[in-house]
């Protein structure tokens, strides 16, 4: 198809102050449609009609990928085991808990948003309302796709925040100083009648007060009855 002749410009209208300030509603195109214009239109039509499907497919892939990231990050936390968290001091443990729980909550929220973007929410619709609000069903589909893409963008941000929190939690765990080792606090007292082993409660009034395991009361052992006293790590 050859290029059409360049048209002469439309006849000039008398200039008025308003015409000078407001550009005309329509402008004469310098050429007719080209094959590229028509191809673009057809492709755009296809792109537009597939908006919702394409967005949901993309959201599904993002959801899977984001879930994999979260699994990776939480795996790093679980590697040491929850019981290992008790081996750090209380202040570090509080920080660790805040970071890990914050990361977990953000991950749940982000994955929820991503799932909503991918799967949508079934709802009852009314054609009249759809047409009144959006102008047509096609427009409604594109608006829905737009909402889904916004949800997905938010999901990505929330999960990025969650991953940062998880990484911070893992780093905190690595660098947290371990809880100081508890000194042996059990005492074993040998008397003529046998050995008493347990936690030393006090040593007042010339007698030891010992709390033995699996007994409710304390055992008092006068100094005079003591043959030997030892600090032990276990009874």
């Amino acid at each position: 198809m050859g290029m059409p002749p360049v048209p002469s410009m439309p006849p000039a209208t008398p200039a008025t102050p308003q015409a000078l300030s407001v550009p005309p509603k329509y402008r004469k195109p310098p050429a007719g449609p080209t094959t590229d214009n028509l191809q673009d239109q057809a492709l755009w039509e296809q792109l537009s009609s597939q908006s919702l499907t394409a967005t949901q497919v993309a959201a599904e892939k993002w959801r899977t990928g984001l879930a994999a990231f979260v699994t990776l990050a939480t795996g790093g936390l679980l590697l040491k085991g929850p019981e290992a968290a008790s081996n750090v001091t209380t202040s570090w443990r509080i920080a660790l808990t805040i970071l890990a729980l914050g990361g977990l909550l953000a991950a749940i929220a982000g994955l929820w948003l991503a799932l909503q973007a991918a799967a949508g929410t079934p709802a009852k619709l009314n054609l009249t309302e759809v047409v009144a609000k959006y102008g047509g069903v096609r427009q409604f589909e594109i608006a829905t796709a737009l909402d889904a893409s916004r949800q997905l963008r938010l999901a990505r941000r929330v999960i990025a925040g969650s991953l940062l929190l998880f990484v911070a939690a893992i780093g905190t765990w690595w660098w947290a100083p371990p809880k100081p080792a508890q000194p042996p606090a059990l005492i074993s007292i040998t008397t003529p009648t046998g050995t008493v082993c347990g936690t030393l409660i006090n040593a007042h009034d010339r007698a030891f007060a010992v709390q033995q395991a699996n007994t409710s009361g304390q055992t008092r052992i006068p100094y005079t009855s003591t043959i030997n006293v030892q600090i032990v790590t276990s009874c």
Partner: protein
Amino acid sequence: MTATPSPGSPASPAGPAGPHGVPYETDAPNAYKWTESAYDLLQDGKLTAEIRSAGGISTATVSGECPHCRDNVNFSEVLDAVTGESLGTLGWRRTQPAQPDDGYVPLTVSCSCTEQHAGRPADINHGCGINFRIELRRDA
């Protein structure tokens, strides 16, 4: 582009149409004369174009007399789409737009009338075969 055929509806809001029996255009469907004629019809108010925005989605509609068959053009095109690709790119590279935004939206309009036209291909159920361009001010 979306055609909304409505059998039995009036052919044109512009009143009794002209040459209903015109054959389907195959020789010069994109000729500039259609664009020129469409511009004249727009100036005369026999053809109208507008961009409506509802629910955040813009739709261009063109209705009125077709430059070729004089039936209702009955054309609409959704100007927005959502895809997995965005116009932005990662990195700091910035690209210049292909065309500067001068406030006018160019539209490629295909006649989507519902009248019968001799010679229309079997796989097409609307239109008289012509395409033309219009340029519409975005905020008009």
